[in-house]
C-alpha cells in the first residue's frame, strides 16, 4: 500500500481521491489560485475563465467513478443475448453468498423506465425485445468476485424484426401539410426524386454512463440519493419515484461532473440510476454501477437510423413549388424519446427553404435492436442531410449553381415555414450562405476543381480527386411547439454576501452551462463574474429547470435567470448584497418560463410556431479522395453560424468546432455494424471516431443577430453544428464524381459510389 504520510500530504494539497471521498462535496467554484481574476464588470460577450476550469486541468474534479462511499458495493448488469423472445430460465452458476441479486420481482414500484410511453421495463420479466436488455442485477463488495460470477439464461427465441420499413409496430406518426402539394407539382417544370439513408451513431462521450445510489442512513425506506453522470436530474428523479414507489421528497438526484453527454445521458441515466437504486434498496448499502466501454456501446442509446424520401417540384429557374417528404426512423426496441426525435426531424425536413406546398409524413417504428434515443441534433441531422443532398441534386439536374438554388429558396424574415410559422428579423439563412461563399471563394474554387476533374486532366491519376461542397441548415432553439409551456421550467437565484448563487437543474456537461449562466447573472446584476456561484444540479436544492437538451440551456434557462437577476437588482436598489442580507435576511428569487406573447402552437394540427427561433449555418468542406483506397480526407472546413449574440464566444466556438468534428465523423467514419441485432463493433478500436489527424483545420465564423427573447440576444448553439457537415461532405463527394446518398461515406461505399456514377 502507499505510505500513509504520502497520502496525508496529498490530502493537504487537495488531491484527495476515491479513498477519502466519503462525501460528495457540493460544487465549489474555483478559487482561481493559479489565475488572475477577471475584474471587469461586463461579463457577457467576454471569454471569462470556465467556472470549473482549474479543477478540470488539475485532475481534481470528481467524476462518478472517482467517488467512493463507505461500505459501497459494486454492481453488474446481466443482459439478454438474444434479440427477441422469452426468458425461460435463469441459473446462477456461482456461490451467491455475499451477493445482492435483484430481478424484476424486487421492484417496489412500477417496472418501467418512466419517460414518455412507459413501455420499457427496468428489468425484463419475461419478454426480451433486444440484445443487451437488462434482466438481472448483481452487487458485491469485491469487484473481482463480482466479475467472476457466471449466470446462464435460457430463452425461447422468436423471429426478430430488423427492418424499420416493414415493422408493423409504430411508435409515432406525424403529418405536416401546407398548401396543396399536388397543385405544387402541377406548377413544376421538373420533378426530382431521391432516397437518402443515414446510419446509427454512437454519442461516444469519453466518460461512460455511471451512477452511485446511496440509501438513507436511517434505512432505505427513508429515501435514496443517486449521484451520477447525467444531463437531466429531474428525468432521473421522476423515473426513480415511479420505479421505487416513493414520494418526491424521498428521492434526491445529484449530478456529478459529467464527461460528455451529447444526448447519450439524456434518458439513459434513468435506466442505470434505477438499477443502482434497486440494488441499494435491497442491500441497504451504497452501490456503484459504472459501465465499461463495451457495455456502454452495446447497451445504451444511439442516433436513430433514417430513410428519407424526397419528391420535389421545381421551376426551371430553381424555385421550389412542392416538397413531398417521407421520413422513416428506426426507433429500436422501445419508444424512449423516439416520438420527440421524429418531431424535430420532420420540423426540420424542408431545410431552411420556403415552399408554398409541403407534405411531410413521418413515422418511427420498432425493431429488435437496442433502443435509439437522444443524440445532439435529435432527428434534424438525418432529415437535413437528405434535404441538403437532394437540393444539390436538383441544382445539378437544372444545371444551376448550388449557391444559386439556395439563394432563390432560402427562408427570409417574414417567410413562413412548413408549419406556418412566420419568421422573425433574425432569420439569417442568406447572410450565413453569402458569408460562407465569400469567405471560401466557393464559386471560384468549385470551378477550379471542376477543371481538374475533367477527363484527361490528370492522365497518370497521381493526384487525389478533390471536391468542394456546402450545406445550408437551420436549427430550432428550445423545446418543440408547446413543449416549453408544458415544462414550465423554473430557475432560482439566491443572494449571497459576495453576490449571487445560481440554482438550476441545467447541467454542466462540457458545454459551459455554469460559466455562461454566471455571465448572464453577473452582467444583469452588474457584479463581477467571480461573485456569482453555481450550485450543484441537486434536486434536493435546485428547482426543475427542465432537461439539459434541445439547445435550450442558454436561450430558455438563461433567460429565466436573467429575469431573476433583474428582479434581484430591483430589490437590492442601492444596497450591496451584504447590506441587504443584514437588513432583510435571505433573498431567493424563483421565476418560471414565460412564453413570448406572440408564440402560438397547435399540437393536434402541427401548425404554428414550432420553435421560439432558429439558428442558421452554412458549412463548406473541401476534401480529397484517394484514388487507390477511396479514403476521404477533409482538407478544409468552414462554418458560418448565426446563433444570436454569443454569451461566451470561446465556448460557443468550442460547441461549433466540436459539433462539426462529430458531424464529420458521422459523415465519414462512424458506422455501427449491427449483426443479428447486436452491435458487432462495440469497441473504440472498431467504432472509429475522428482523431487529431482526421480533423481538418476549421475556420469558424459567428454572425450575431440578436434574438429579442434570448438573454442578451442569445439563441441556442449546442446542436446545430452537427447538422451541416454530413451533407456538405456528400455534396463535395458528388462534386468530385462520387454519387452517394448514404452516410457514413466509408471507403467501401465511396468505392461503390464511384462505380455506379461511372456506369450511369
Amino acid at each position, binding site marked *: 500500500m502507499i505510505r500513509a504520510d504520502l497520502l496525508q500530504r496529498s490530502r493537504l494539497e487537495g488531491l*484527495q481521491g476515491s*479513498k477519502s471521498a466519503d462525501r460528495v462535496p457540493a460544487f465549489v467554484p474555483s478559487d482561481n489560485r493559479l489565475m488572475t481574476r477577471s475584474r471587469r464588470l461586463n461579463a457577457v460577450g467576454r471569454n471569462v475563465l470556465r467556472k470549473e476550469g482549474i479543477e478540470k486541468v488539475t485532475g481534481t*474534479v470528481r467524476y462518478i467513478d472517482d467517488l467512493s462511499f463507505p461500505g459501497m458495493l459494486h454492481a453488474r448488469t446481466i443482459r439478454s443475448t438474444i434479440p427477441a423472445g422469452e426468458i425461460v430460465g435463469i441459473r446462477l452458476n456461482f456461490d451467491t453468498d455475499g451477493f445482492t441479486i435483484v430481478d424484476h420481482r424486487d421492484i417496489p414500484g412500477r417496472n418501467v423506465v418512466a419517460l414518455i410511453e412507459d413501455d420499457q421495463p427496468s428489468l425484463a420479466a419475461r419478454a426480451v425485445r433486444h440484445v443487451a436488455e437488462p434482466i438481472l442485477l448483481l452487487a458485491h463488495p469485491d469487484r473481482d468476485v463480482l466479475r467472476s460470477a457466471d449466470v446462464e439464461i435460457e430463452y425461447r427465441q422468436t423471429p426478430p424484426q430488423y427492418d424499420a420499413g416493414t415493422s408493423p409496430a409504430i411508435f409515432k406518426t406525424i403529418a405536416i401539410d401546407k398548401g396543396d402539394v399536388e397543385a405544387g407539382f402541377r406548377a413544376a417544370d421538373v420533378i426530382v426524386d431521391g432516397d437518402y439513408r443515414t446510419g446509427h451513431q454512437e454519442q461516444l462521450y*469519453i466518460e461512460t454512463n455511471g451512477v452511485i445510489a446511496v440509501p438513507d442512513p436511517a434505512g432505505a425506506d427513508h429515501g435514496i440519493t443517486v449521484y451520477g453522470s447525467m444531463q437531466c436530474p429531474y428525468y432521473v428523479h421522476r423515473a426513480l419515484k415511479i420505479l421505487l414507489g416513493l414520494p418526491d421528497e424521498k428521492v434526491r438526484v445529484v449530478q456529478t461532473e*459529467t464527461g460528455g453527454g451529447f444526448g447519450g445521458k439524456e434518458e439513459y441515466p434513468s435506466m442505470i440510476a434505477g438499477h443502482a437504486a434497486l440494488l441499494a434498496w435491497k442491500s441497504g448499502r451504497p452501490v456503484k454501477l459504472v459501465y*465499461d466501454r463495451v457495455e456502454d456501446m452495446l447497451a445504451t442509446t444511439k442516433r436513430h437510423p433514417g430513410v428519407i424520401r424526397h419528391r420535389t417540384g421545381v421551376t426551371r429557374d430553381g424555385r421550389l413549388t412542392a416538397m413531398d417528404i417521407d421520413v422513416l426512423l428506426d426507433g429500436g426496441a422501445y419508444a424512449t424519446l423516439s416520438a420527440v426525435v421524429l418531431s424535430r426531424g420532420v420540423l426540420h425536413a424542408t431545410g431552411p427553404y420556403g415552399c408554398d406546398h409541403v407534405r411531410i409524413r413521418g413515422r418511427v417504428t420498432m425493431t429488435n435492436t437496442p433502443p435509439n434515443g437522444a443524440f445532439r441534433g435529435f432527428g434534424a441531422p438525418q432529415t437535413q442531410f437528405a434535404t441538403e443532398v437532394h437540393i444539390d441534386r436538383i441544382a445539378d439536374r437544372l444545371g444551376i449553381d448550388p449557391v444559386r438554388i439556395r439563394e432563390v429558396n432560402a427562408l427570409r424574415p417574414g417567410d413562413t415555414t412548413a408549419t406556418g410559422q412566420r419568421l422573425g428579423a433574425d432569420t439569417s439563412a442568406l447572410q450565413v450562405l453569402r458569408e460562407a461563399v465569400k469567405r471560401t471563394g466557393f464559386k471560384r474554387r468549385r470551378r477550379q476543381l471542376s477543371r481538374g476533374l475533367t477527363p484527361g486532366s490528370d492522365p497518370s491519376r497521381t493526384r487525389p480527386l478533390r471536391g468542394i461542397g456546402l450545406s445550408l441548415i437551420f436549427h430550432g432553439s428550445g423545446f418543440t411547439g408547446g413543449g416549453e409551456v408544458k415544462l414550465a421550467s423554473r430557475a432560482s437565484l439566491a443572494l449571497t454576501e459576495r453576490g449571487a448563487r445560481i440554482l438550476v437543474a441545467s447541467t454542466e456537461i*462540457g458545454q459551459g452551462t455554469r460559466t455562461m449562466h454566471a455571465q448572464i447573472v453577473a452582467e444583469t446584476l452588474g457584479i463581477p463574474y467571480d461573485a456569482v456561484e453555481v450550485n450543484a444540479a441537486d434536486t434536493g436544492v435546485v428547482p426543475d429547470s427542465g432537461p439539459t437538451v434541445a439547445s435550450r440551456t442558454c436561450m430558455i434557462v438563461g433567460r429565466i435567470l436573467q429575469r431573476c437577476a433583474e428582479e434581484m437588482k430591483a430589490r437590492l436598489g442601492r444596497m450591496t448584497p451584504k447590506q441587504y442580507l443584514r437588513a432583510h435576511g435571505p433573498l431567493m428569487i424563483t421565476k418560471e418560463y414565460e412564453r413570448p406573447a406572440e408564440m402560438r402552437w397547435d399540437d393536434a394540427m402541427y401548425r404554428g410556431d414550432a420553435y421560439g427561433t432558429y439558428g442558421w449555418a452554412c458549412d463548406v468542406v473541401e476534401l480529397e479522395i484517394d484514388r487507390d483506397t477511396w479514403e476521404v480526407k477533409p482538407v478544409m472546413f468552414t462554418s458560418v453560424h448565426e446563433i444570436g449574440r454569443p454569451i461566451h464566444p470561446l465556448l460557443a466556438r468550442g460547441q461549433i468546432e466540436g459539433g462539426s468534428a*462529430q458531424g464529420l465523423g458521422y459523415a465519414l467514419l462512424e458506422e455501427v455494424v449491427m449483426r443479428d441485432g447486436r452491435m458487432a463493433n462495440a469497441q473504440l478500436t472498431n467504432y472509429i471516431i475522428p*482523431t487529431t489527424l482526421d480533423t481538418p483545420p476549421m475556420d469558424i465564423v459567428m454572425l450575431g443577430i440578436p434574438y429579442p427573447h434570448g438573454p442578451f440576444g442569445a439563441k441556442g448553439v449546442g446542436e446545430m453544428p452537427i447538422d451541416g457537415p454530413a451533407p456538405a461532405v456528400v455534396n463535395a463527394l458528388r462534386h468530385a464524381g462520387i454519387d452517394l446518398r448514404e452516410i457514413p461515406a466509408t471507403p467501401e461505399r465511396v468505392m461503390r459510389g464511384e462505380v455506379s456514377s461511372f456506369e450511369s
Partner: protein
Amino acid sequence: MLNGRRTRLDVHPMKRLLDVLREECGLTGTKEGCGEGECGACTLLVDNRPVNSCLVPVAHVAGARVMTIEGLRGRHPLQRAFVEHGGAQCGICTPGMIMAAVAVGRKPALDQIRTGLAGNLCRCTGYEAIYRSVMRAR
C-alpha cells in the same frame, strides 16, 4: 518514483497501473475511457514517455519514474493554457491530453501536436481549442 516521491506499494504485480493509482494511491486524475489503448484518457508519463496506464501492469513501473496529472501540481503552463483557450470542455480527456502534450515538448509545430496527440480522443472540442492551448502555453 510517483510524482517525484519515492513510493512503495504492495499490490498484485498484474494490477493495472491505472487501478493502482486510482484505488491504492488516491490519484483519480488519471481516467479510464476504453480499456483498449484507444482513447488515451489514462495517459501518464513513465520515465518521461507517455503510455496508456490501462495497459501497463504495475510490475512494469518498479523502479521507474511515474508522473500523473497530479504531479504537475497545477503549475504547468499547459494547465493554465487549457483553461484560457478552451482546451478543456467536459474535462474527462483533459488529464491524459495534457500529459501527452507535456511529452510533445516546448514550442511544438502544429504537425507535431497533431501527431503527438493522435492517441488521445476528445469528443467535445474537435481538437482545435486543444491545439490553440498547446501552442499558446508559455
